[in-house]
């Protein structure tokens, strides 16, 4: 096998030889300094007598399975490692997130690529083509890396390489690895962000988060974009939702709750202790806050508790052109919109217009003519089971909900019904 790569297990314990070929110790760990370079091994930690020494990457001449040869004699004792991501201590055996595979994995080993860099002209390199550097290429998971690690030390590295060949490799490219660091200060020093996670579908992110410990969960929700956080949070088990929101600062929690649909926000807040949910509500912007507060008044298993207050309603005399204009003004709702509603001067519901009908009618058509033949609606106090029954009986996608005076209060959509049914 070409020796352009090296495993971390092989690196550990490699002898380190100085310019004159004298052995000064063995490799104990290696570290990246992420603020300088995201993948290059910047420091080798070498254990000699009783103290550890630090070797910078540019003090190394060559790296192979036989050892590391140095090109410099001025080595410093190892002391602080604030800015170091130590492979052996911080990465090996820990859980990381595989962004591409959308799952949590445990690191068994790390594969480095040995690259030759041009010598930087001070003429002390031992080989003419320049010095060797290590770059983190992949993180290894799966059986192959377990076998390698168990055998390391018991058999020579080259024999292990031959033995492991029949086992298929299972590795994750370093670009797709996301380390979860709960300590914010360390996160800053190690330049760790959770931005990569924002590319994962919120439902997958929710699954990932459910697998992590509470500290890691909190760290993720603290740092990712509030909109992504909101979407992921709605997919999480209700009990865990509560503990996540309670662990966050109220401002951050409020930012996330604001991004949620009001009905989902109300559901989440109902699961919290009253003091905490009040704190979060107080941090929220006025408009979403009052909507959520209204929803909180309703019992969870009634139409009022299920409904969403984001909907588009028009006066019953409006035309298709008016409706189109209204849609343009509410683009954030379009993704889940199925119908627009007609109300009279007092806000009382008079009709439902399925969205698709708007597209086959001319702009001047009055909306009243496009409304469904029978007006089906529920009152805010209607029981959950009855609402579900209505959806089933009339094959609805959206059901308007009215208050005791018949005024349109909100709308229940099919996705609300699906989650109700699933939780039963």
């Amino acid at each position, binding site marked *: 096998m070409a020796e352009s790569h090296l495993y971390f297990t092989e690196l550990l314990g490699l002898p380190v030889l100085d310019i004159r070929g004298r052995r000064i110790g063995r490799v104990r760990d290696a570290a990246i300094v992420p603020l300088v370079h995201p993948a290059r091994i910047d420091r080798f930690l070498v254990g000699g007598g009783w103290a550890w020494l630090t070797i910078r990457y540019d003090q190394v001449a060559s790296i192979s399975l036989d050892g590391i040869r140095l090109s410099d004699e001025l080595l410093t004792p190892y002391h602080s490692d604030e800015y170091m991501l130590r492979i052996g201590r911080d990465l090996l055996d*820990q859980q990381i997130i595989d962004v591409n595979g959308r799952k949590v994995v*445990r690191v*068994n080993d790390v594969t480095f690529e040995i690259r030759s860099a041009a010598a930087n002209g001070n003429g002390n390199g031992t080989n003419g083509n320049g010095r060797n550097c290590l770059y983190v290429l992949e993180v290894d*998971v799966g059986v192959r890396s*377990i076998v390698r690690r168990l055998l390391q030390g018991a058999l020579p590295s080259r024999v292990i390489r031959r033995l492991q060949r029949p086992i298929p490799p299972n590795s994750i490219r370093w670009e797709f690895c996301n380390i979860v660091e709960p300590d914010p200060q360390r996160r800053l020093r190690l330049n760790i962000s959770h931005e990569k996670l924002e590319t994962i579908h919120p439902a997958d992110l929710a699954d990932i988060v459910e697998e992590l410990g*509470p500290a*890691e969960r909190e760290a993720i929700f603290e740092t990712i974009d509030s909109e992504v956080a909101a979407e992921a949070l709605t997919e999480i088990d209700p009990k865990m939702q509560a*503990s996540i929101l*309670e662990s966050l600062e109220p401002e951050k929690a409020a930012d996330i709750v604001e991004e949620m649909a009001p009905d989902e926000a109300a559901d989440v807040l109902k699961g919290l202790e009253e003091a905490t949910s009040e704190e979060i509500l107080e941090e929220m912007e006025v408009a979403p806050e009052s909507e959520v507060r209204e929803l909180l008044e309703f019992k969870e298993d009634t139409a009022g508790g299920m409904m969403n207050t984001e909907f588009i309603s028009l006066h019953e005399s409006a035309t298709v052109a008016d409706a189109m204009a209204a849609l343009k003004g509410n683009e954030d709702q379009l993704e889940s919109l199925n119908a627009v509603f007609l109300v009279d001067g007092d806000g009382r519901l008079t009709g439902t217009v399925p969205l698709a009908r708007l597209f086959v009618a001319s702009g001047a058509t009055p909306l009243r003519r496009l409304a469904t033949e029978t007006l089906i609606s529920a009152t805010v106090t209607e029981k959950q089971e009855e609402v579900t029954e209505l959806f089933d009986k009339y094959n609805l996608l959206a059901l308007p909900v009215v208050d005791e005076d018949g005024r349109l209060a909100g709308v229940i959509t099919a996705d609300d019904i699906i989650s109700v049914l699933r939780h039963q």
Partner: protein
Amino acid sequence: MLKSLRSRILIFLAVLGPGFITAVVDNDAGGIYTYSAAGAEFGYLPLWTLLPITVALIITQEMCSRMGAITGKGLSDLIREEFGLRITFVMMVLLLLVNIGNLIADFAGVASSLGLFHVSRYVSVPLSAAAIWLLVVKGNYRSVEKIFLFACVFYVSYVISGILVKPDWKEAAIYSVRPVLMLNGSYIEMLIGMVGTTIAPWMQFYLQAAVVEKGITAKEYIESRVEVIVGCFMTSIIAFFIIVACSGAIWSTQPRRIESAAEAALALKPFGQYAYLLFSAGLLNASVFAACILPLSTAYSVCEGLGFESGVNRRFQEAPIFYWLYTSVIVIGATTVLLIPDSAQVRVILISQVINGVLLPFVLIFMILLVNKSGLLHEWVNSRTYNAIAWVTAVVMIGLTLAYTGIIFRGLR
């Protein structure tokens, strides 16, 4: 005040499960045999050990459930993260062997208890193995846990059969608190056996994983602790009634050494059909129950520790190693009982007890080391007093387990 009590009870019910199930399953086929044998040969004398046993159980279980609630990670996860792959691998191999041994004992329990009802083992064992496999593969964690909790109720059968035998309650009460030590070889062996089988490695792994799976957090930890303690007392109460039943039925008429739990059940026959039936049904329930949990716990712990995908909520393609492990542990357990002669089975079970004696010290020591890591548990680490108690418990348990292992080892040669 009333409201807070009510909400506390509600939270208690919400966290009910892990601690209770773990402690109760501790009385599996092997445990029932040990207690029956103690009662049959020495009557009420060994009852006093139940109190210290309860304390030891509470101390160890409490630490595991605390680690689970605070870190949100299983015990094998934590061992892997803090002590590395090689140690974890060795522990997981040992755990696998010990659990297979326990599982064989439990399938043997299924065979012998249903044998009392004249069901052939060639019917009972494959059927129960298939049922256990299906239950977990086709069910989800929540429904499975409900079934498990329901199975806990059946342990009441021991309490009733204990009462039906009409033992000498005054004696039982006195010897529950009066320690009796005799310089009698087989008595001491019996005591060591009772304590030595109390804490099994799988329990620690199962409990912590179940606490995590249930999503118990630091906030609910007080209730969860109560749950663990109640569970441990339940276990000892059941053990108490088993010992008392066998004292009343066997020891008071003719003290003797019994060879199996089924023999104990048969000895209850003169005290009425119900006492006998309940004791046998209890044995069946305990065996099936433990046989459900052991393969599951094994597959979970091993996959977690070695970093393979795990969980009954995943499909086969997503977690192949988990399902293979789960299935083969059940198959090995069941076929051993069917194909290997009884004497060889006993040998296999005893050998697994010896491995148990090797594994347990590591588990206990690692647990106490982990629970003291402030990086993991922050303000929830052991206090100094608690640590002292925990170390004393661990050392005593390790000592007694090793002594028990020695006794078995001597017998094996």
